[in-house]
């Protein structure tokens, strides 16, 4: 595919009058050769195909940018292969060195191709239509009107071409005309705007940040790095761009469909009612929905997920409260069977942890296992497995709040412990085994997962994308045509040339001939 085509090489060599004895291998000429190759249309085409090919693996393997959990899972399932694939950057395809080098080469090629063309096109725009080639009869559309002075008139052709918005220069016995300059204008607009898109995406991404925060009803967070659950800044991110605000989740509500049997229990709408407060401003209440983010100065807040946070109270045997509050449970399926972890390092007798399942509408599978039959709350149920031992929270190593490392702990309720798992309905209290105290299922709150993002490049990306689109339309729907007409001893010659293959050129010549006909 990339082997140089002999015909093109030959054309280049023919320009030299002397036969070339030794190939000119000076550094400068090499560079020129590489540059000429790089900016050729054929290389652009090959780079485009390579780019398409290189993008494919990113859809086959999980990507750290789009699906980080998928990558972790892949490593767990195929540790050997995963390490090997990771070496080839197949989990970071779109920031990999090979993908980046293809698109950078492509853009260098594009810039190298476009810049000289801007100058050429500018000159063409201010210049009159070019002189005719020596032989009009070799043009793709040509007609000789023999001995026709009596029947045809040049001025009529001029009139006709002008009415068709040609740029016309009429001289004695000849006409040259051109139209469709907008094609090249559009082409250049398209390609330069594409560079604009790339720069805005790059700079915008570097200056951007995105953050996540899980917020239970009634909770408030402040938008600084400590207030987020996770925070991903761009390379050039400056914390000065973080206009401070605080946000409280007042209420989270879901509308379910109970009307249509086809659709029964399906969520129809998620609404997070929040109160946000900017410095020196009064708090304002607003609604965030799935397709309706909340716009705040220098950040947008999106609703990306939701679930239940059962309120749990743990008491020691003597009645002292050692833990109390809502616990965020992560949804495991569309009916919101949810998994939660409670760690209680402050228990008096022994540290213990609880691995709990929450079923908003409990139902039984054929196997007898519990599941949730509906995402809404109907007789909700909590089940708990209890583990005793050192939770490792004092070691100073950060641990995942949603994960209980049961290795090294002793299970005292549920599973193989021979003690039944604890089951609690709303409002119930149960005794914990081994004299650990009691657990109460006090109530249910909902939580919302919020994404907070800032990307100053967005607006420019959109602007350049729109320009790209305009350029594309201008370039693809306008034909560029040149027409020459001249008197010769044999008669009047009409010739037409197009920049691209143009089937209607002969039709144009026919029309010109018709227009030139003198009326008797």
């Amino acid at each position: 595919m990339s082997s140089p085509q002999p015909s093109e090489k030959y054309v280049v060599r023919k320009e030299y009058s002397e036969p070339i004895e030794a190939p000119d291998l000076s550094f400068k000429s090499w560079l020129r050769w590489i540059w000429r190759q790089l900016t050729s249309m054929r290389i652009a085409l090959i780079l485009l195909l390579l780019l398409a090919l290189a993008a494919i693996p990113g859809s086959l393997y999980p990507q750290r940018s789009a699906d980080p959990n998928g990558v972790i899972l892949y490593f767990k399932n195929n540790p050997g292969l995963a390490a090997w694939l990771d070496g080839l950057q197949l989990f970071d395809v779109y920031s990999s060195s090979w993908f980046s080098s293809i698109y950078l080469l492509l853009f260098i090629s594009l810039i190298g191709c476009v810049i000289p063309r801007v100058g050429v096109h500018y000159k063409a725009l201010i210049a009159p239509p070019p002189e005719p080639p020596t032989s009009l009869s070799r043009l793709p559309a040509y007609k000789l009107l023999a001995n026709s002075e009596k029947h045809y008139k040049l001025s009529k052709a001029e009139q006709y071409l002008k009415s068709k918005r040609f740029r016309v220069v009429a001289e004695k016995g000849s006409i040259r005309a051109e139209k469709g300059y907008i094609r090249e204008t559009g082409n250049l607009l398209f390609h330069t705007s594409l560079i604009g898109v790339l720069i805005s995406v790059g700079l915008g991404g570097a200056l951007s940040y995105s953050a996540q925060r899980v917020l239970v009803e009634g909770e408030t967070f402040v938008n600084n790095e400590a207030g987020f659950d996770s925070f991903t800044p761009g390379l050039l991110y400056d914390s000065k761009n973080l206009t401070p605000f605080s946000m409280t989740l007042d209420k989270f509500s879901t509308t379910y469909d109970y009307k249509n049997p086809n659709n029964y229990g399906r969520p129809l709408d998620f609404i997070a009612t929040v109160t946000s407060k900017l410095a020196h401003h009064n708090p304002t209440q607003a609604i965030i929905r799935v397709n309706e983010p909340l716009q705040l100065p220098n950040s947008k807040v999106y609703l990306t997920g939701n679930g239940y946070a059962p309120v749990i109270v743990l008491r020691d045997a003597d009645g002292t409260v050692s833990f109390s509050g809502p616990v965020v449970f992560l949804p495991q399926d569309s009916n919101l069977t949810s998994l939660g972890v409670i760690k209680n390092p402050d228990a008096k007798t022994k540290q213990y942890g609880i691995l709990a399942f929450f079923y908003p509408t409990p139902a039984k599978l054929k196997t007898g296992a519990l599941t949730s039959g509906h995402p809404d709350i109907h007789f909700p149920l909590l089940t708990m497995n209890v583990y005793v031992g050192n939770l490792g929270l004092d070691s100073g190593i950060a641990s995942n709040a949603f994960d209980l490392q049961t290795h090294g702990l002793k299970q005292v309720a549920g599973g193989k412990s021979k003690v039944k798992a604890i089951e609690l309905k709303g409002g119930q209290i149960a005794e914990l085994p081994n004299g650990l105290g009691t657990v109460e299922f006090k109530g249910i709150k909902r939580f919302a997962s919020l994404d907070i993002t800032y990307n100053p490049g967005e607006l420019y990306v959109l602007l350049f994308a729109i320009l790209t689109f305009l350029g594309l339309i201008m370039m693809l729907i306008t034909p560029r045509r040149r027409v020459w007409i001249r008197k010769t001893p044999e008669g009047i010659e009409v010739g037409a040339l197009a920049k691209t293959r143009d089937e209607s050129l002969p039709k144009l010549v026919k029309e010109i001939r018709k227009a030139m006909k003198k009326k008797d």
Partner: protein
Amino acid sequence: MNSTVVLNPELATLSRIVVLAALTLYSIAFLILTVALTRRAGAKKAKDALANKLELVGISLMTLGVVVHGIGVLTRGIAAQRVPWANMYEFSITGSFVVTAIYLLALIWRDIRFIATFVSGFVVLIIGWANTRFYVQVESLMPALQDYWLVIHVSVAILATAFFMIGAALAAALLMKESKFINNSKLKGVKIIRNVLNVFPKTEKLEKQSYQFNIIGFILWTFTLIAGAIWADKAWHRFWGWDTKEVWTFIIWTIYAAYLHATATRGWDGKRAAWLTMIGFTAILFNFTIVNLYFKGLHVYSGL
């Protein structure tokens, strides 16, 4: 906001029957058009009156089919109380409707009757497949899809696909016409194909027509991509995130961009450009079927 939606399953069932009626009409049209094409290929005279008549009957049946098909699509939308393109079944019936409608409208503008067999056959396959494999009852939209961009983004994507489909049919005709195997083989079956291809327009004309459909497809696909990014910025907190569907939209865009460069590069126009069209359209079909059904991503709207 959507809690007042009342779905109409009875009307949806009726819509399915109407679509199947359209499928029957298209199937008959396909058979008649095939007969017309082979007859024309066998005819000694350049113009076979019976073939012309059969072709007219076939295209009239397709026109009747598209009207019935349109009623099927419309009633599906009414039954679901929204645009009829929110799952694979609906994409398929709406998409095949648009393909046929665009093709029949294009007949007014360009004489591309010779690919009527391809188009009707393709549409029969899509509807048949959708009806047996993709059918789902009418359901409401999940909150992520409740947005006006669903109307814009998806409808333009379907329109783009229709143009690319016709462009690919023309490119396929070109490639068969240029195929060394078909031109030289002495097998009887291949001979018939060769005779059929002889009544097709010249290669240059096929190339030009394929190009015209492809550039309109490319403009519409570019719009789909930009509209998708605007919507993704609203719904998914970023305008581009290399989601699998975004990746494939990009790949398709890049292949057709390469195609456009090929048509303007000596040595790459003609057959090679036609191959790029075939690759591009294969990527579109891949994106619609395999990516929708088996790839993990945010565009999980197949309804299956």
